[in-house]
């Protein structure tokens, strides 16, 4: 689909771009020799456990820590009174989300608690076990307050206001009204309408959140060993709120046991750990246990959306009108805010389609539940499911195939760049190509024939499609313009070592998606060395270029481009030195597989190790005007478009047992377009993992709260995550439309699977049950809900 000329660096002989190569960092992980935060011990390190609120909303009347402090091994019990003088509170708002508001948040309860699980007191002890024992001995007297737990009534005048100083429970509202929506609905041949519910769920990273904070009062340096996606953001926040010199805060992030957007936010308990190491002057470790994770790791989604879509007689969408309410926690999460997900729903719903009439109201309301914020897919699963469900309803009503109705509505290929009525701008999308390829891959005709044949036997199978757009490679438009010090640019330093190998030091981070591998592939290709001779360093703010880290599917697109540009420049510098040594012209030389060669003939002239030897140890043999510069840093920020959108088409095949209500996932297909594919296997595995993280909440995962704001299923035994036996095989195909915003042309891929899967499984279930005239739109689709829809319970 690319009409750009071939790019020399990407097309060079021995290029690793587009090839599946092994991940150099995988071997230590399969041998159990990873370095996760909890694997570390530091001298004089102490352990932290928290006494947490059992109530969703209450005043803290008194805290008696005497008994806890008397337990042998307890060093100190810390409450907010102890921390007030050494840190400042935070407020999760961004300037560009107009009107967003939140309350001041402290690391420990400051007179009130606002959700079950909020930390009230921190116990410091010589072991985790003692700290936990002592946490049970902290006596807190509460005065219970009525909790606000229903998002649909949170804004009613009779509902208590959680933070009096804010005036009401509204965090953020955004409205869009483009074109003439009312006229389109008045003239519609068919209107599809549905109220959809998107369940509250959470990330369940296999490694819980973990941090070691180590403050050295002698040199005033704070070192944070943390599992985090964005080390520089953390560096800034700890410095800012602890009143430290930012240059003296160092964040070190080694292996991270899954993140998916969980380990990118400001958490009270982690900030408390930072304050307590300053207080005590010794290292403090906090590792959340699984029960704490469920009540404190950010939750996601929790939207109720009333939406309708107007169609003309030809099956063209003429308008989309919707009202989205989302219930967050008692605070907008700092610093990315809890307004972004609703904002994404407004920006992206109906994204693949050409309709010009669009109205949307999104409201974000405070609740006395755990905080809600950006988790893999951010808003996309909701936006995709809304439009894709309604378009399927239109197809059924108008007698069109779901594939055909999508083709009729896609933004035409020749209309790009295209500005959607929400304001989203698409550089170039490949919806027709992706859907065509998908239909071919899955043998759509065969599946429909099988579906009809099995229906005769009382077997109900369904096929669900979605087409989607996904935000990747964000520019400063995401956070920077809103005043958050979250870098959208990233950098890469590449050094030619005397051995002839290269070391790449990058600001983007690794949580298993393969960041280090693709940076190595790009750098090896750009410089001209073998992958075996590349070492990649990430995750240490004292070492790596200043950058944003890994979020919003930016690692490959932003960090990859920085690596490419650094590699190209280093290659030029190496060739200059080589030309001097070889008395040749840089243009006449090239680097291939770690050696300087004649560009024309490919004849080897000198290994890079020899060039390294001369440059580093025998500079005396070079002319006086030649100073080798064998370290190069380049940065990249995406410009031209606020975001680089990817697109994809998904299909899900299910069988619904109408007697038990069980949904069996038979197979799943994805055709994704993430631009230049750097490593096909990594793209496929990111896609598969992403899909399963979308299937989970569509079928099983839900944080169930009581009316009192108590989480009912906050353990891994009660909160259901997908297991191997129930997940389908997932077939992945690629279409490549490189972005012209970078030379590499890569877009992100980490979130698109999660974005599409809930809508696809919803559509498949409704397709399976089409003959019963039911509509399931309340996730997760449990057997009970299926049977209720069928009128069987």
């Amino acid at each position: 689909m690319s009409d750009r000329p071939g790019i020399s660096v990407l097309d060079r002989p021995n290029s690793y771009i587009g090839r599946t190569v092994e991940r150099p960092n995988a071997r230590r992980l399969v041998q159990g020799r990873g370095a996760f935060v909890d694997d570390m011990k530091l001298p004089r390190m102490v352990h932290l456990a928290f006494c947490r609120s059992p109530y969703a909303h209450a005043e803290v009347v008194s805290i008696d820590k005497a008994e806890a402090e008397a337990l042998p091994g307890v060093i100190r019990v810390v409450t907010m009174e102890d921390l007030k003088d050494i840190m400042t509170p935070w407020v999760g708002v961004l300037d560009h989300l107009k009107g967003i508001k939140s309350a001041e948040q402290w690391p420990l309860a400051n007179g009130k608690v606002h959700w079950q699980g909020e930390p009230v007191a921190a116990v410091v002890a010589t072991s985790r076990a003692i700290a936990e024992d002592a946490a049970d001995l902290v006596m807190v007297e509460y005065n219970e307050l009525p909790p606000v737990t229903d998002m649909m009534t949170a804004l009613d005048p009779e509902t208590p206001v959680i933070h009096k100083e804010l005036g009401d429970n509204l965090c953020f509202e955004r409205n869009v009204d483009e074109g003439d929506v009312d006229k389109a609905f008045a003239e519609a041949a068919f209107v599809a309408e549905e109220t959809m519910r998107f369940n509250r769920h959470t990330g369940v990273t296999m490694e819980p959140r973990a941090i070691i904070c180590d403050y050295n009062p002698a040199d005033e340096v704070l070192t944070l060993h943390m599992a985090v996606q964005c080390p520089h953001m953390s560096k800034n926040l700890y410095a800012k709120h602890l009143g430290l010199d930012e240059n003296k805060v160092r964040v070190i992030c080694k292996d991270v046991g899954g993140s998916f957007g969980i380990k990118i936010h400001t958490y009270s308990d982690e900030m408390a750990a930072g304050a307590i190491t300053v207080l005590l002057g010794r290292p403090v470790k906090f590792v959340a246990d699984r029960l704490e994770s469920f009540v404190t790791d950010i939750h996601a989604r929790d939207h109720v959306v009333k939406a309708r879509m107007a169609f003309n007689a030809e099956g063209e969408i003429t308008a989309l009108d919707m009202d989205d309410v989302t219930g967050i926690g008692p605070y907008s999460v700092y610093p990315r805010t809890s307004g972004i997900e609703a904002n994404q729903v407004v920006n992206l719903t109906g994204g693949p389609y050409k309709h010009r009439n669009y109205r949307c109201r999104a409201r974000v309301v405070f609740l006395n539940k755990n905080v809600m914020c950006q988790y893999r897919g951010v808003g996309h699963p909701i936006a995709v499911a809304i439009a894709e469900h309604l378009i399927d309803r239109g197809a059924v009503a108008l007698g069109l195939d779901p594939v055909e109705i999508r083709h009729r509505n896609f933004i035409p290929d020749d209309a790009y760049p295209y500005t959607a009525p929400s304001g989203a701008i698409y550089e170039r999308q490949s919806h027709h190509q992706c859907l065509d390829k998908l239909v071919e891959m899955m043998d759509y005709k065969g599946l429909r024939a099988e579906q009809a044949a099995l229906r005769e036997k009382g077997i109900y199978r369904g096929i669900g499609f979605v087409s989607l757009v996904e935000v990747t490679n964000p520019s400063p438009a995401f956070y920077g313009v809103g005043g958050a010090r979250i870098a959208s640019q990233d950098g890469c330093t590449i050094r030619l070592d005397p051995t002839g190998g290269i070391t790449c030091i990058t600001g983007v981070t690794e949580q298993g998606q393969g960041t280090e591998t693709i940076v190595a592939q790009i750098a090896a290709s750009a410089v001209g060395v073998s992958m075996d001779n590349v070492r990649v360093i990430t995750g240490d703010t004292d070492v790596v270029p200043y950058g944003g880290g890994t979020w919003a599917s930016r690692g490959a697109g932003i960090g990859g481009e920085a690596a490419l540009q650094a590699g190209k420049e280093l290659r030029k510098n190496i060739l200059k030195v080589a030309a001097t040594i070889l008395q040749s012209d840089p243009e006449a030389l090239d680097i291939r597989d770690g050696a300087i060669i004649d560009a024309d003939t490919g004849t080897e002239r000198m290994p890079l190790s020899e060039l390294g030897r001369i440059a580093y140890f025998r500079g005396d043999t070079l002319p006086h005007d030649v100073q080798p510069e064998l370290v190069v840093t380049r940065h990249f920020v995406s410009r031209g478009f606020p975001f680089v959108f990817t697109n994809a088409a998904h299909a899900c095949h299910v069988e619904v047992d109408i007697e038990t209500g069980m949904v069996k996932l038979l197979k799943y297909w994805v055709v994704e377009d993430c631009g230049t594919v750097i490593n096909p296997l990594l793209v496929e595995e990111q896609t598969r993992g992403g899909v399963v993280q979308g299937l989970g909440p569509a079928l099983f995962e839900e944080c169930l709260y009581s009316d009192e704001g108590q989480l009912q299923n906050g353990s891994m035994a009660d909160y259901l995550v997908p297991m191997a036996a129930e997940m389908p095989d997932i077939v992945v195909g690629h279409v490549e439309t490189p972005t012209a915003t970078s030379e590499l042309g890569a877009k992100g891929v980490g979130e698109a699977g999660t974005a599409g899967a809930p809508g696809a499984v919803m559509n498949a279930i409704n397709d399976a049950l089409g003959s019963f005239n039911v509509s399931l739109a309340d996730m997760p689709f449990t057997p009970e809900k299926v049977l209720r829809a069928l009128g069987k319970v």
Partner: protein
Amino acid sequence: MSGGNAMEKTYPVTVIVNGTPMTALVPARLTLADFLRNEAELTGTHVGCEHGVCGACTVRVDGRTVRGCLTLAVQCDGAEVETIEGATEDGRIKDLQDAFIERNALQCGFCTPGFLMAADELLNDNPSPTREEIREHLSGNYCRCTGYQAIVEAVEMTAARRRGEAQ
């Protein structure tokens, strides 16, 4: 959850960890997972849920896999315990580890040692598991990154290679 309080009663145990006897005084409540991580300093055994669901702490005790978080260290007095580090040194699962890398059957790697221990047991018991049997056997181990397919294929590939079938 290592280390009880100073008043807590401790018990002497000798555990044969990866072939080497190790003697320690442990509180009754110390789990095998915490014993391995904190006393033996073998950090390849991971703790994901501490109530026997996620499988990240899967290790072998006297030849069978157990949950390290549901087994107490005092129960293992005299037992042979093998962790991912021991299985690696033994060389027995090198082909399985290689297949995990080749197939990218791990992303963050936190669950991986547990999966390898569970898959090793499956392949010992059943040299020709079907994909369904592999999925079923591995359903006691959670992975949030991969979506499982790559893990299933790495195990399937290893089984086929051990049977001498090219894959």
